[in-house]
């Protein structure tokens, strides 16, 4: 079922936001990146179970830009981001003294509809990806695929996945993509749109690669680098996954961040398919 992930995410967010609320110091709102969201949700469950008291942790999606914004403006105690805080954001929210707590790393894959992968497009060079997003390559046959127009899927400008991907492809995290046909938001939305198409290309966290959304290798010289092969430490599109707070975290926020960095939290990060902090040397 192509949209089941989408449904599930919507339901999870809803369920998470409708629990009865205990006292204020035992409530925590976490917002932002949909790449960090699944591990934060799992960690919140585990943390709540172990804490032995009434705590309510609400995890809401929105994207990295929303993560930075809500932590800085106090809308949420913790923001989730899957990229660095941009210099623009540091300037804009200077007063909030944003503090980044890296909880792991992730590789971003260039993905295509499974039909395209099976038809022979199993790797692309950086130049080919750039030309596709610039709109100078518009048909899959130009890169060894079937004679079919390319459905180029872009993401909202503030998204962490986009920053990492565009920094690699264009050398600029907020580069424009005039070749884009669709603009999507969350990982789930992008995954659903690419799965629904038989000719799409996009960018996704490696953990979202599925039967219908295939990761293509990145050709660099003679080498073909694959995002879900952990042994290839040279894979070029990596980014940190972090929690953001305004100043030093305190109370429940601090406890939660400490839990995510403790062995139990790091195990959740690794099991989901990301790289724990200790494995930073396995990603470039």
């Amino acid at each position, binding site marked *: 079922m*192509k*949209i089941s992930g*989408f*449904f599930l995410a*919507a339901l999870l967010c809803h369920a998470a936001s409708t629990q009865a609320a205990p006292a204020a110091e035992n409530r925590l709102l976490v917002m932002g990146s949909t790449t960090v969201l699944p591990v934060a949700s799992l960690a919140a469950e585990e943390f709540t179970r172990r804490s032995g008291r009434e705590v309510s942790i609400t995890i809401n999606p*929105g*994207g990295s*830009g*929303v993560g930075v*914004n*809500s932590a*800085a*403006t106090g*809308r949420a105690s913790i923001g989730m981001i899957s990229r660095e805080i941009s210099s*623009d954001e540091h300037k*804009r929210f200077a007063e909030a003294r944003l503090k980044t707590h890296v909880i792991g790393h992730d590789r971003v894959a260039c993905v295509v509809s499974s039909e395209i992968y099976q038809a022979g497009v199993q790797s692309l060079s950086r130049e080919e990806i750039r030309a596709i997003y610039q709109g100078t390559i518009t048909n899959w046959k130009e890169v060894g695929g079937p004679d*079919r*127009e390319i*459905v180029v899927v872009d993401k*909202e*400008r*503030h998204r962490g996945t986009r920053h990492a991907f565009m920094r690699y492809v264009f050398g600029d995290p*907020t580069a*424009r993509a005039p070749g*884009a*046909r*669709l*603009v*999507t*938001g969350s990982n789930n*939305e992008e995954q*659903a*749109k690419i799965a*629904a*198409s038989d*000719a*799409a290309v996009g960018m996704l966290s490696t953990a979202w690669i599925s039967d219908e959304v295939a990761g293509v290798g990145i050709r660099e010289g003679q080498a073909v680098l694959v995002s879900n092969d952990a042994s290839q430490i040279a894979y070029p599109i990596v980014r940190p996954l972090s929690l953001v707070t305004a100043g030093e975290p305190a109370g429940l926020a601090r406890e939660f961040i400490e839990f995510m960095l403790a062995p139990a939290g790091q195990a959740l990060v690794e099991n989901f398919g990301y790289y724990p902090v200790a494995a930073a040397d396995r990603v470039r």
Partner: protein
Amino acid sequence: MFQPRSIAIFFRVLVTVLALTATGLIVLFFLFLVKESLPVFQAEGVGFLTGRDWWAGESYGAWPMIFGSAIVTLLALGLALPFALAGAVVASEFLSSRLRWWAKSLMELFAGVPGIVYGLLGVGVLAPAVKEFFGLIDGNTLFTAALLLGIMVLPTLLTLADDALHAVPGKFRDQAQSLGLSRLRTVWAVVLPQAKAGLLGAVFLGLGRAMGETIAVMLVIGGRDRMPAPWYNLFQPGQSIPSKLGREAAEAVGAGLQWNALMGLGLMLFLMVLGMTVAGHLFLKRGRAA
């Protein structure tokens, strides 16, 4: 004990205060939008309305979103109206009161279904269907959004249009039929013209819902902040004002010009709905005078 007179005065004051509060809130809301969007008009001038390029931090051209909202709403109404009118005529003039009750209950149930449910059906069913049927490379287009919106406003339009038709007194029908008109002819020549004001009201309520719908449109319109090329090719992706606000607002709070630009979009949406409502009332007045 209160005198009936003092009770009447009390209620008159109460109603006046409530009415002023409601109007005042709308005026305040409007002023807030104007104030918040002022910086973008100072920075971009008329270019904010006519510009075709939107890239946060660099340029704010709202025309593709204004165009998208207008065209998607109008097309949705155009698609839904014939079905809504035909359905309302059948429900009001030809169904037994029992069947009409069932039909109306069902329509009101559909009218209350949240946008996200329609949105998921749009992503899962409608977009792939549009892609297949029209042989497109992708089904997320302005047309898909209009079609989904048309389906969404149909129940609202139908049930309100039915109310308008049903409010026409029975004596008009009796007299028309005693003059020898058929039932269908009676509807066409007598009931529909009598119900014009109510029907127009139904259209504007439907329009309001269509123009403001965010999440369902956001999921199928494509999300591209550019004009389709050529402009009338609605089988290309685009963007509507609510969809743009839905995607960008949470990130832009307190972000200076980007926030002001989004408020400017909100102001445009407000003015578009206001403009259409005023136009509708004028149209109605002229219809009465003639």
